[in-house]
């Protein structure tokens, strides 16, 4: 696929971004309007770059990077955390949204699960996580065998499976778990956050490798945004911490787990 040129984007007047179906990173209003921390930031920055609009399409986590590579999106702004392999596959901007990992478990945490390692050690514990997401990787890295890592299509399904006892723990970033729990209003569930031993991850806007120029332009505007304090105003209502994002860098994040 050919590189997306900022000039081209300006000319066509919009950029295509991939987002996830996962509040609060992304939210779709009853009117169909896309909001949420990640697209909001992207919208503002692209506007400043002269691209009037962003066209968001909701996508599975696993399909985002292939979709980007196949030229279906110009950027991913979906809470796709920076990980060394991902840094190899795409060009990230500087960090935008940072979050720790959390578990949703049954009331009282009957299996006493507080880290991915605990899950690996308990032969009966099953963890649910989005396919291709950070949590799936962390679980596998901690030594949870494949057949106890259940790929769950979406957050609602994850909570439902937890309620139905199909899984013992459902893992997502802290804010996502909180959002789901708020909606579920189920007194029989509780949150374990942050997960012990799991690092804080940050996402960035992801671009194609050959689109470094576009990424760099994005970074410039992102930096200005952060410095002006508007950044905090944008993301903090959703529960994210601007300080966390500003106290780390892409290079640190990409190197982090190595």
């Amino acid at each position, binding site marked *: 696929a050919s590189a997306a040129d900022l000039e081209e984007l300006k000319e066509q007047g919009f950029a295509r971004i991939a987002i996830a179906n996962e509040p609060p990173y992304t939210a779709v209003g009853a009117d169909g309007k896309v909001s949420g921390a990640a697209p909001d930031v992207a919208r503002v920055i692209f506007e400043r770059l002269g691209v009037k609009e962003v066209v968001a399409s909701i996508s599975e986590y*696993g399909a985002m990077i292939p979709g980007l590579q196949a030229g279906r999106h110009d950027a991913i702004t979906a809470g796709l955390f920076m990980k060394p*392999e991902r840094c190899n596959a795409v060009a990230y901007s500087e960090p935008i949204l940072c979050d720790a990992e959390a578990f949703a478990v049954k009331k009282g945490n009957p299996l006493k699960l507080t880290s991915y390692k605990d899950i690996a050690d308990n032969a009966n514990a099953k963890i649910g996580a989005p396919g*291709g997401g950070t949590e*799936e990787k962390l679980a596998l890295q901690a030594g949870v065998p494949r057949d106890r890592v*259940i*790929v769950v299509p979406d957050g609602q399904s994850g909570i*439902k499976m937890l309620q139905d006892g199909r899984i013992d723990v459902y893992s997502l970033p802290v804010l996502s778990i909180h959002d789901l729990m708020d909606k579920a209003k189920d007194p029989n569930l509780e949150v374990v956050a942050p997960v012990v031993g799991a690092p804080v991850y940050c996402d960035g806007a992801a671009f194609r490798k050959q689109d470094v120029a576009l990424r760099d332009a994005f970074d410039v505007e992102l930096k200005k945004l952060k410095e002006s304090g508007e950044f905090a105003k944008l993301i903090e209502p959703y529960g994210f911490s601007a300080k966390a994002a500003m106290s780390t860098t892409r290079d640190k994040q990409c190197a982090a787990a190595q």
Partner: protein
Amino acid sequence: MEWDWDFVWQIMPTLLEGFKITILATVLGAAVAAVIGLALAIARRSPIAAVSRTVGFVSEFIRGTPLLVQLYFIFYVLPDIGIRLSPLVAGVIGIGVHYATYTAEVYRAGIENVPRGQWEAAKAANLTTRQAWIHVILPQAVPPMIPALANYFIAMFKETPLLSAITVLELMNQAKSIANSNYRYIEPMTLVGVFFLVVSLISVVGLRWLEERYARMDD
């Protein structure tokens, strides 16, 4: 993006794992479809209008709505009324009941295709209804059904990827999982395609054989 043979060999064992589940789900689903389908076909012939109508409507409904949505329903909604099925069982029941509405039609057509004269000859020979079914109608009705039933068997096989939506780790799900963790879609997806194509081509040959073997007997 280039085709990478090393990667192919590396992911093959995982795909084969998934393939096993695919086959298992197909075979079990087919068994469910065969049995429930017969039950539906018989219920639809029931002289009690309420029974035949209800069964007719339910079949129409199942046949008119996507299996994917039905699977979501079975897996995520049924637990609310206390029915919690494992992913594989939910998948087998979903796909089996869905296809039962199709096999029911095959059974019905097969039975109706036995010429009316055969019923009449059975009556003239003073056989009871039961005897007529067992000795005259079914032996003629079943062989011509076999190719059509086999056809649905193959169709079911090709629909098993839907089970990935309810977390069954079949071929498609394994491939997606590989694709997700390696950010490479081409190899796993193409291999899945090849798996399906190979099985389909083999089954086409098998089907031809069945069609020849069970070609309609002409009087």
